[in-house]
């Protein structure tokens, strides 16, 4: 079966790629666009390690086909912060030591940023529910939740 030509936008840049008809967006990002931040944990939408946004909407990129994103705007963890200027969510995750192996971290960053766009002042419960689809087997979650809450507070200008 012939490959499909797709024009889309990734992290603000116009991007074109060829992909197989049944190739997932996650495989396109990692194998064709060399954006390896999104990880394949389960491949079935359960773990959240492959989280990205499409037109601002949080999704699991393993449950999206590359062919589906023509004309959409995708944001991956590579579009969030830089090594010199981390996004507050990234900085607070580091400061709270909210990661060990790091496999879930890119998905957590993308998901937490999407939450704070929608709800700049989430309660702890709201953060826990929002991130319930991002599994972490290292931290026990508590540090992640604290980090997101303190990043939210900083972004609201309440404390550093």
């Amino acid at each position, binding site marked *: 079966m012939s490959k499909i030509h797709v024009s889309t936008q990734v992290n603000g840049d116009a991007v074109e790629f060829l992909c197989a008809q049944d190739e997932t967006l996650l495989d396109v990002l990692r194998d064709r666009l060399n954006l390896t931040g999104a990880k394949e944990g389960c491949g079935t*939408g359960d773990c959240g390690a492959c*989280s990205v946004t499409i037109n601002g909407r949080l999704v699991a990129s393993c*449950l999206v086909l590359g062919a589906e994103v023509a004309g959409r705007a995708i944001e991956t963890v590579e579009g969030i912060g830089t090594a010199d200027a981390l996004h507050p969510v990234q900085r607070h995750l580091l400061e709270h030591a909210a990661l060990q192996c790091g496999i879930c971290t890119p998905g957590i960053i993308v998901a937490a940023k999407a939450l704070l766009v929608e709800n700049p002042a989430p309660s702890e419960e709201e953060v826990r*529910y929002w991130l319930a689809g991002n599994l972490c087997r290292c931290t026990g979650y508590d540090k992640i939740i604290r980090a997101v809450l303190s990043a939210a507070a900083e972004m609201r200008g309440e404390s550093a």
Partner: protein
Amino acid sequence: MRYVVAKSSRDAVALLKAGGDVRLLAGGTDVLVQMKLHEDRPDTLIDIKRIDGYGAISLEAGGYRIGAAVSGAEMGEHGPLKALWPGVVEAMALIGSTQVQGRATMVGNLCNGSPAADSVPAMLAAGATARVEGAGGARDVLVLDLLDRPGKTRLGKAELISSVFLPARPARAGDAYLRFIPRTEMDIAVASAGVSLELDAGGAVVGAKVALGAVAPTAVLVPDAAAALVGSRLGAEALQACAAACAAACDPIDDKRGTVEFRTHVAGVLAARAAKIAYTRAGGSL
């Protein structure tokens, strides 16, 4: 596998009719998982998200038409829809994670055919109709009449659902959906209940629909449970009769997630509790 974008309902029907193993793709949260886990590769996957109107929630005759490509997240963000049919919206919102909510659709939940589909009992209680597109054009069918058996609806081979319609309701009306799962969220219903009520000015129930999920091969409407509530103000006797009618309507499986006895009991408990929530939402005081 061939990926095709349908441009219209007619286009999608023609692609379905062309035959082979053809599947429809909206949110993909079931079909793409099935392809991955079971290597169940259709010959053709038809993406229906770009068909005009499929992505819309529109006001129609005082009710809401919800397109087949509308995600759970979009339903949850639609204030007026949530105000009119909070039970349907909360049933849909219980499905999966934030990431799944960003893609999963109510029509997909219906067409996947799971007896435990959360949105289906809520749609039955709402008296929802589905618009079915086929070779002869569109027809409107009660969602109830589309249920067949686990994994299967009564849609024809060359038919698809373009939208679901939730009708208008009187001022004193409310609905609610509850499910039992052993965890806080992100699980499949062991038993569930959707209830919709209409009250008169004095707070007596004048119209009721009660539906159960995960306790039979399909979601079921339980007219006896609804009849037990009509005329009452949800006193203990009416709620008990409603729960008993629900238990009598159960025909569940026994599995690791719940025994027959447990599911049968809990279905009635959930229906009575959902009825109370629906009653309060309708403006009644308990």
